[in-house]
């Protein structure tokens, strides 16, 4: 499998460091892992003896569980470093924290941090492969890969697909990573949200379309992804109320009429039902929201497997 492609020893900060061919190789490997996850006995001995450290400097439930389960199923040893808030609050720098942990003999790091660029810093100070599990508003490549996997599995190629991402674009690492990955695989992507939640020069940076009107953005979409809208943006003066937000941007039967008839619906979770998405859409047959979670374990298994040089 993918003999010519090499993932061993590389980091995954974001998808811009990976070619379309490499992304497809990850998707193929994920497909195999997904099959294994359907078995009664869901375990491979392939990473036995390898040690993975999950460095979580920011609260996370599903991503951390998903990574730990993925590592478990490949028989790797896992140690967890969890710290709420920044490393600074603990009085120890990230540099010193990872020096200490690295001295215990780690083969790969999975890091989540509220500040962008932290994965690069961990790699700089450990020399070990680092897998970014979300850094600030910058990137969340495993989420993007599982989103892309979910689409690819249902619709085949992403080439030429119309994909619309709706919500708080400015604060979304999921959007940024998805834009890079989806564009690499040939999709036409539109981002949609209020102007106050839209970063500058999006189309220049990502080659996407920018729309501020939901119905226009959804027109003929093959795939629609809603994003979590956080209440704290209201107190930051970025929008007036959740009510007005949902009036303009919620995914409902009414607004989804503008998309293609069987358009897939995704959401990275956790969802605010009734705000960015109505139950009538979230729980509909076109929704792959729960399957995204299932796929997340498979994608993370594939990545750990490839990056640590496991053998099938």
């Amino acid at each position, binding site marked *: 499998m993918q003999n010519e492609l090499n993932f061993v020893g590389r980091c995954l900060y974001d998808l811009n460091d990976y070619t379309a061919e490499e992304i497809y190789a990850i998707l193929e490997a994920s497909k195999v892992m997904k099959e294994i996850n359907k078995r009664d006995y869901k375990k491979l001995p392939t990473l036995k003896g390898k040690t993975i450290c999950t460095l979580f400097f920011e609260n996370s439930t599903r991503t951390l569980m998903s990574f730990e389960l993925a590592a478990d199923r490949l028989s790797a040893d896992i140690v967890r470093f969890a710290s709420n808030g920044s490393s600074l609050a603990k009085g120890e720098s990230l540099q010193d924290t990872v020096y200490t942990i690295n001295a215990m003999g780690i083969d790969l790091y999975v890091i989540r941090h509220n500040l*962008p660029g932290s994965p690069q810093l961990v790699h700089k100070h450990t020399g070990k492969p680092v897998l970014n599990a979300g*850094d600030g*508003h910058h990137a969340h490549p495993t989420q993007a890969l599982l989103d892309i996997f979910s689409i690819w599995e249902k619709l085949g190629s992403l080439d030429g697909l119309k994909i619309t991402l709706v919500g708080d674009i400015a604060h979304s690492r999921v959007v940024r990573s998805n834009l890079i990955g989806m564009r690499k695989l040939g999709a036409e992507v539109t981002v949609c949200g209020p102007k106050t939640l839209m970063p500058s020069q999006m189309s220049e940076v990502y080659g996407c379309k920018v729309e501020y009107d939901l119905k226009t953005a959804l027109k003929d979409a093959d795939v629609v992804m809603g994003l979590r809208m956080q209440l704290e943006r209201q107190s930051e003066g970025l929008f007036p109320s959740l009510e007005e937000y949902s009036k303009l941007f919620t995914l409902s039967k009414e607004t989804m009429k503008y998309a293609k008839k069987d358009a897939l619906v995704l959401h990275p979770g956790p969802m605010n039902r009734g705000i960015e998405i109505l139950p009538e859409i979230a729980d509909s047959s076109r929704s792959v929201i729960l399957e995204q979670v299932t796929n997340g374990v498979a994608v993370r298994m594939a990545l750990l497997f490839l990056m640590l040089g496991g053998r099938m």
Partner: protein
Amino acid sequence: MLVKNGLVYQGDKFEKLDVLIKGTKIERVAPSIDETEATKIIDAEGKHVFPGFVDLHTHLRDPGQTHKEDIISGTKAAAKGGYTTICAMPNTDPIVDNIATVEYIKRKAKDVGYCKVSVIGALTKKSEGKELTEVASMLEGGIVAVSDDGGCVQNTKIKLNAMKYASNFNIPVIVHAEDYSLSAKGQINAGRMSTKLGLGGIPALAEEIIISRDIMLAENLNCHLHIAHISTAKAIQMVREAKSRGVKVTCEVTPHHLLLTEDACDNYDTNTKVKPPLRTEKDRLACLEGLLDNTIDFIASDHAPHSDFEKEKEFNLAPFGINVLETSFASLYTELVLENKIELTKLIEKLSTSPAKFLKINSGLIKEGCLADITVVDLEGDIHFSAETMVSKSNNTPFINQTFKGRVDTTICDGVVTWGAGTKS
């Protein structure tokens, strides 16, 4: 002392001349001065002889932050970079908002420094933007300007009063232009890079709104406003227009805003984290244009040393600032003069003649009667910047581990060699 056979800066040209120094002053500049007239000869054959560089904007970090830099290491870095006079910014710990701290810096620089140090006093007490400082008594200590640099007075009424009060004494008020409500949480320029890297953006508007406000205040009060480290195309245009209608406004630009753009921040190199942030290519070109048409009066370093342990952090947690004094001439010469973006004579004017004039010091020219502040540079000579070679206590420059042309061989300050052969130790 006799500087022999060098190509000597004579305003708009270089001439092969000898420079005879007696005491602290230049005694004579002539085509051939006999070696018997001096006890010490500096052979400048094949080298260029410039007036010593003058920096209006240095953070010496002394008192209080001497792990980053101190008056000895900072002035030594200056001498190595070819500077003979630098101005210490007041955002130390404590803030330079009183005569005692002014005198401490002046005295220490005189006793142990490698160049002359002028002091800029705080505009408001503790630079908190609330109460005015004792400008008159700080003037007795020898301050040359007032500024809350590093911070910016947000309240317009207080800024108005502070400028009005400073104008009593006919000294410039230096503004670090930053509207906090717009720059809040910002790490790099708001734009393409901040979008890509997911870092908070500092919009050009945060600088331009304060500059626009302060130009209006200066015009209204008829007092001298000096804008520190200008960085946006619009801000430069505002200064150009203000100057043309006679407002007493001057401004400076840093080497990094002339040489780098926001693209340098890719990969989260914290050595590129600075205020104002590195801007777009359009802004960079506007800085260059402003320098060439004299909208921008001179180049100032904004030398802002920070220790490795402070910069080796998550981008958001690293402090703002770039280490500049040692790299400024070589980087500007290599990237701008050798690339035909600016004449060498113009660069020297902007590093020496023009800031010397601003400070009203008898320096910045090489002619009879001027202070013997001289920098001898080998334009062919390579200079490499690394943690091992830098004399500053800190290494926080984006040019680390790079090599440039234009090595300072000898710096002479008030007739004394402060860098190169014969340096006092």
